Structures are given as C-alpha cells and as structure tokens.
C-alpha cells in the first residue's frame, strides 16, 4: 500500500515536471518598487497572454530591493521609483517606463484645498503645527509619513527639498496604510502614489496645481517621480522585448488607464 502510494506520487511528480518543461518557457522575474508592482503585474499578464513562451513573475520588496536584486541577478529586471538612483545602481541600465505623481492627501472633512510648496515643507518639518495657520480649522496637524528607506518618502523629500521630518510624524509602512490613517483622522496629512487615490481621501492642490494626469503630463504639478526598470548590462532577448512592450503604445496606454503617467 505504502509503496503504491509512493509510486503514484513519484509518477505524478515526473508527469508534472515533464509538463512544466515541455514548452521550454523563458522566465523573467521583476522585483522592487511596491508602487509599480500592481502595474507591472497587469502589464505582465497582458504580455503573457500574447507571448505564451514567456512566464513573468512580479515581486515587491521596495525600490532598494529592486536595485539589489537587479545587481545580484535574483531578478532580471529591478523596479525602482526613486528620483535619484543610488550609487551602486550605476552598473545597471535604467529605463524610465512611467512617471508617478505623489499626491498630498487630507481627510475629506478637512476644508484646506491648497498648500504652497513652502507650506508643505513647513508642515512636514513641524514648523506649522495647526491647520489654522494654513487657512483651515483650529486643530493640530497630524503628519503621516512613510518609513525611512521608502522610495515614495525619499522621492517626496528630494522633490520638496529641505525636509527633516518632524519627530511627531506618524509612520506607516505602505501607501495603503497611509490612506487608511488619513481616511480615519480629520486632522491628518499624508502623501501617496497618485495612482492609488480614492474617494476616502482628498488630494490637495500644490501651488494651485491639482494632482491630475493632465497637469502632471504638462509638467505643472511638481511632485512627480520617475519609475525605472533596471537591467544588468544591455537588455537582451525576452527581457528587452518585455521592456519594449511596456514602452509601446499599448503598454503605455495600460499605464495611463490604470492611473500612472506615461513615460513620454
């Protein structure tokens, strides 16, 4: 009985292995930026539906992981959403595949609709502590930021410049939890990827420019970061084909309809 089970089991494994290898698929792994991850998954799905010989896996981990895994070879393509690529990324070939606005978000109950870049800086530095200083209600500001090392946080701080985050800032570890915190707290201000805005929170204007795809494309909304795909050496074979697909009209259109800003 026991032997029979083992026999059947090994047979099943052999069959599975043969079936798996049969088509001789090329596999590509993407890893890194959690902001681009859902879009990369969508693009990979579309690409695979027309290219049956390729299997694409998309992993998260954050921009730092994207850079590291592209260098180590753990992933063929690293994803990073940084304004300035780190020193060690010099050996990689970067391609900008999309851009992403970072929206400053408030609770819908908050009446403030516009902040200047200087006000944003002072709010996050802890110099402005009350909403009445920027034309809102008389209540203390709850600053919500991301953890040290987050691509969104470093992009935000590099674009706004001269930010040394107030020690009172709450720290949340993803775009999603930032959204929940702001949605739950009428006094909160946070920032997150433009593609992840929803009705529970409200994006404000920065220097009178709204955070919309049009104004970001026109270069009027300033808090925008590039999304890089990083490849060791020159992209070749299926890796190159996939990146070319993302840059093609169809790929860029997907990027646009799902909420990111096309690269060009």
């Amino acid at each position, binding site marked *: 009985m026991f032997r029979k089970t083992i026999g059947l089991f090994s047979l099943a494994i052999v069959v599975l292995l043969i079936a798996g290898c049969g088509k001789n698929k090329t596999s590509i792994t993407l890893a890194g930026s959690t902001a681009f991850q859902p879009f990369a998954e969508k693009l990979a799905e579309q690409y695979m539906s027309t290219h049956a010989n390729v299997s694409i896996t998309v992993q998260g981990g954050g921009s730092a992981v994207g850079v590291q895994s592209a260098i180590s070879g753990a992933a063929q393509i690293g994803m990073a959403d940084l304004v300035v690529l780190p020193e060690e990324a010099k050996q990689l070939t970067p391609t900008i595949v999309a851009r992403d606005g970072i929206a400053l978000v408030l609770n819908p109950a908050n009446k403030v609709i516009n902040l200047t870049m200087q006000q944003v800086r002072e709010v996050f530095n802890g110099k402005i502590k009350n909403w009445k200083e920027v034309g809102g209600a008389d209540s203390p500001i709850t600053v919500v930021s991301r953890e*040290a090392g987050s691509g969104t946080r470093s992009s935000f701080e590099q674009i706004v410049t001269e930010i040394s985050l107030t020690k009172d800032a709450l720290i949340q*570890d993803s775009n999603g939890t930032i959204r929940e915190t702001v949605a739950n707290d009428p006094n909160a201000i946070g920032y997150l990827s433009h593609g992840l805005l929803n009705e529970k929170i409200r994006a404000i204007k920065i220097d009178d420019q709204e955070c919309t795809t049009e104004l970001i494309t026109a270069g009027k909304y300033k808090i925008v970061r590039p999304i890089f795909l990083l490849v060791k050496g020159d992209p070749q074979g299926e890796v190159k084909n996939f990146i070319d697909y993302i840059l093609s009209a169809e790929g860029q259109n997907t990027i646009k309809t799902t909420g990111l800003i096309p690269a060009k």
Partner: protein
Amino acid sequence: MSLIGERGVRRILAVTAFSAISALLLIALFILNEGLPFIFRYGLHDFLLKSDWDPQAGKFGIYPMVAASLWVTFGAMVVGAPLGVAGAIFLSEFVPKSVMRVIKPTIELLAAIPSVVYGFIGVMVLAPLIRTQLGGPGLSLLAASIILGIMILPTVISISIDSIQAVPQSYREGSLALGATTWQTIHMVTVRAAKSGIIASIILGMGRAIGETMAVIMVAGNAVKIPHSALDSVRSLTANIALEMSYATGLHRQALFATGVILFVVIIILNSFAIVVLRKRVYKK
C-alpha cells in the same frame, strides 16, 4: 525487527526534540552574529541612549524605541494585570466547576485571534475613540497599551487560574474554619499561596506584550520620539525592525539586527525571571 523499530523511533524523536533547541540556538547565533558587530562599532552607550534615529544620516540611537517598548509594556500591565488576576480569582473561586469548564477555553481562544485582528480593531474603533474623546492623533501609546492589555489577558488568566487551583483545598478550609470571610480567605490565604504563579503569569504576559509587533505597528503610530504623554505616538523596538527591514541595507540593516539583539536580551531576562519564580513555587510544595 521490533527492536530496530524501537531504536529507530527513539532516534527520530531525539532528532525532532533537538531540532527545536537547535533552531533556537541558530536564531540566537544568527541575530548575535549580525547585530553584535554593529553594537561594538557604534558603541552600546550611543546605540542605547542617543535619541536620534535617522538611518539615512547614519544616526542610530534607539533610546526612544527602548522607552516606547518599556512604556507600552508597562501600560499593557496596568490594563491587563488587574483585569486578568481579578478574572482568574473570580473564575476559580466563585464560579462552579462546570461553568468554568466552558469559560476557561473560551478565554484561551482569545490567544488564538491573530494579532492583526486586534490591530485592526484598534485602528478602526479604539484610535478614533481616543482621538475624539481625549485628543492627540489617536494612534498612540494609550491605544497600544489597551490593545496589548487585552492581548495578554489569556496568558495572565489561564496561568493564574492554574496556580490558584493548585492551592490545596485544606488552606481554604482552615481559613474559613478560623472565622475568616470568603474575601479574607481569598486575599489573605489563597492568592498569597498562589502568588508566585500569579507573578509568573504577569511576567509571561509582559514577554508577550514586549514582543508583539503587528498590533503595535497598527495602533501605535510609529513616531520616533520619547513619549511625553499617553496620547503621543510611539514606536516600539519590534515595530522599528518590522517597519524598516524590507528596505534596509548595509549599516541600517545591521542596526536593525542590533535592535533585535537588545529585544532578545530583554525577553530572555523576563522569561528566565518567570521560570525562576515558577520553579520556586514547585520547590515550596
């Protein structure tokens, strides 16, 4: 044949038994190996007592996190210990055995609820309540203390019940025969006799509170600062590791492992303390 089988089983059991211990040893070695070099390089004093945590600028002072962990644990004790001990006394002294047989497993079931669920309740219910009633950002030391206080209840209650029930019935009978009331018997005889078990239950609860991560990340707000009031947001040692580990490289990563070393040492001290207290009870009998 059966002899070989006998020996074989013995060996297999030995391997599985030692695998648990060797896993513990490997984890300890790994954390120490990754974390200690950093502590030696940066200096234990600076690491533990400086209050600037800015990994990008190369500043690694975990004092605010140490303070936060201690305060959160203390808060959880204030909430959980009286509730737990009172509950245990009530359940073991006032409730009939048959009822207890239903209630105790139910309380122990509390321990089976994933911490992320406690955190979720904290975020959705407790934090808004604190914000509207008491002020501050809501995600705070107070919220974390209350949630952790509830989370340690099963530990405190079930170990306390066990130790109160282990008090020989003759103690109670003797006290009652001398004319003491039920309450006098409980607080002067029963609880006193069960003291070491109750203390051990609180210490084990403390171990759970200081090591809890997910629920604390969700409800404490994670601001790196020394709390001035219970309404301030804090970041515990565990939250610091979990929040930044996915991004950390190089020195930053080592600093997080070093944070783990500190946490490990604190928890080992707490647990050994609990073991010593529990052993004393056994010895007394």
